[in-house]
């Protein structure tokens, strides 16, 4: 209960731009929730509304069951880590970390002890006397995290904390943040546009688009069962493949037609799909759920290789199927040439279909 966050119909507009549209969200205590979306989707604004750095136009914000909508940031029991670190350049690391505690007028000894503890936790206790200008980007980031944690907040808010770090450091800090969250268990809301970061860190991911949450689920669900074409196309490297397909049915069977090719569908779909006979749908499948066969016959989807990219642990093929271009992940040792005709087999259970008009996933109970 202490660290639970609830947003009830919050709305925030900047002039004519609706940054957040009547958004509802419930973050469980001790949960690591990631707000994920492209730039301008309202994820940072949502975070700033939780922090109290933005006033909501409408709706309510609850933290730990307490209505904090009208409270200033300092009274909300939150701490925040900024993308730019926001460490004070004129203060030593120790002063930076202890800043909030000094504002609360805690006894000096107590502050010193708390600062040392959290500095050890983040392995920056050697740097306490240094100034930020003497630190690397990664160290500054640790200071920023330490400054947030020392406040023992009910809720920790992070706004793209890793995006200013180089790739290797980002990988390292990502694991570090995960470890910290496991050790401390503070409710965390984490904003990022990096879907890999979201998948690796989040207990749940809220995928946002144009001020709305389009899907709120565990990383695996979001990855395997995107709620619409947007989520499928945004998450995953490479993103989900999409092809046009037509629902066809005869007396015995129901299937999806891609050009002349007939694709089998899971048995549970068949009854429902029959009602959609002759409708066109969008078929979605992930690159790793397509199998490649050198021969084109034998009930396989015929395709032409355009590009083959070896990526070390796997090989990524770009192939042409009718008018659509697909990405296919294969074993690194599969030998294929550009221009080669191949046959594709789509893993039946991993297929997802979407409405052509709305892009929303069509699911069957």
């Amino acid at each position, binding site marked *: 209960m202490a660290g639970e966050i609830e947003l009830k119909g919050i709305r925030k507009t900047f002039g004519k731009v609706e940054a957040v549209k009547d958004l509802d969200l419930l973050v469980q205590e001790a949960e690591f929730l990631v707000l994920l979306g492209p730039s301008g989707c309202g994820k940072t604004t949502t975070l700033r509304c939780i922090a109290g*750095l933005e006033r909501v136009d409408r709706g309510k914000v609850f933290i730990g069951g307490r209505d904090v909508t009208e409270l200033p*940031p*300092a009274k909300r029991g939150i701490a*925040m880590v900024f993308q*730019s670190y*926001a460490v004070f350049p004129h203060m030593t690391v120790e002063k930076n970390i202890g*800043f909030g505690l000094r*504002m609360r007028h805690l006894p000096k000894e107590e502050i010193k002890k708390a600062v040392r503890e959290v500095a050890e936790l983040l392995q920056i206790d050697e740097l306490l006397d240094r100034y930020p200008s003497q630190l690397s980007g990664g160290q500054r980031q640790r200071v920023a995290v330490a*400054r947030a944690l020392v406040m023992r907040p009910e809720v920790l808010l992070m706004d793209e904390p890793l995006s200013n770090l180089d790739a290797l450091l980002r990988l390292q800090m990502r694991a570090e943040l995960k470890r910290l969250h496991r050790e401390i268990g503070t409710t965390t809301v984490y904003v990022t546009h990096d879907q890999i970061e979201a998948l690796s860190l989040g207990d749940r991911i809220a995928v946002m688009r144009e001020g709305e949450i389009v899907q709120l689920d565990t990383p695996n669900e979001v990855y395997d069962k995107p709620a619409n074409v947007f989520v499928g196309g945004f998450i995953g490297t490479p993103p989900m493949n999409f092809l046009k397909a037509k629902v066809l049915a005869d007396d015995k069977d129901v299937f999806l037609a891609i050009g002349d090719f007939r694709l089998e569908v899971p048995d549970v779909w068949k009854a429902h799909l029959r009602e959609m006979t002759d409708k066109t749908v969008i078929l979605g499948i992930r690159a790793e759920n397509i199998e490649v066969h050198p021969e084109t016959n034998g009930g396989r989807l015929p395709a032409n290789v355009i590009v083959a990219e070896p990526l070390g642990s796997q090989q990524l093929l770009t192939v042409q199927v009718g008018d659509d271009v697909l990405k296919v992940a294969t074993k690194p040792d599969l030998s294929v040439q550009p221009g080669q005709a191949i046959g594709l087999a789509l893993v039946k259970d991993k297929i997802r279909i979407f409405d052509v008009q709305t892009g929303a996933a069509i699911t069957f109970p």
Partner: protein
Amino acid sequence: MRTGRWQPWLFVGPALIIIAFFLVYPTVMTIVRSFFGRGQELFGPNVQFVGLANWKYVFTSPTMLLALRNNAFWVVMFTFFTVTFGVLLAVLLDRVRYERIIKSIVFVPAAISYVGASIIWKFVYAYRAEGLPQIGLLNAIVVALGGKPVGWLIERPWINNICLIVVGIWIWTGFCMVIFSAAYKNIPRALLEAARIDGATEWQVFRKVTLPLLGPTIAVVATTMVVQVLKVFDIVFVMTNGAYGTEVIANRMYKEMFNFFNYGRASAIAVVLLFLIVPFMVSNLRRFTQQGVTR
């Protein structure tokens, strides 16, 4: 051919010659002339060597002591208030919707010449004897409120000096504000927000974050203001011409030179002014060259 040795001198040579001719030579001659007596000529049969007489005058005569005291008063008051108002306006106007319009208005006096500004303020301070209609804005207000008219530019030692300094502050506050405003907008908002989230009140955010981060800018602006105010001349010349105990160094220098034709004394005063200003110029130059390093 070894061109390396003299090539740099070839490039800086013209600049050095110009500086030597227009800066070093006059400075040296002014220092030399400060040991000679009356007369308008630089040297000649009528000009006599007087040793330290001019210097004794500069540091002991009541007139000059008054000018030095007034200049010190100007330096303290003018610098303190231009910088303080500049910072406050820059930080507070940042939160106002019509920031740009208000800033433009505050900046306007910077575009008015000293003489123009002095004439404007002479009207504001205008004084007629009690009972006569007051044409001065301030006295009109004072009288309307039932008070007695005040001789703003006559009441010594403080009221008239303060009134003069107010004119200087009025002219320069806008300039300071613009510089501080630019510096303030350069402070990342996240720093201020982080402080607020950590529980700092608005005053604490200002004291603990904004002010220290404006520190280098404050130092540069303050020293620039000191240099400006040490040379103060026009306002005093136009409004009181140093009467009623408002004399300042530069005005005294002008009088010795062009009213009393005492080249020697004027030179000595000029040298004093030069040596007062040099340390501030040096510190400013240092700061300018360091600026890249501090951030």
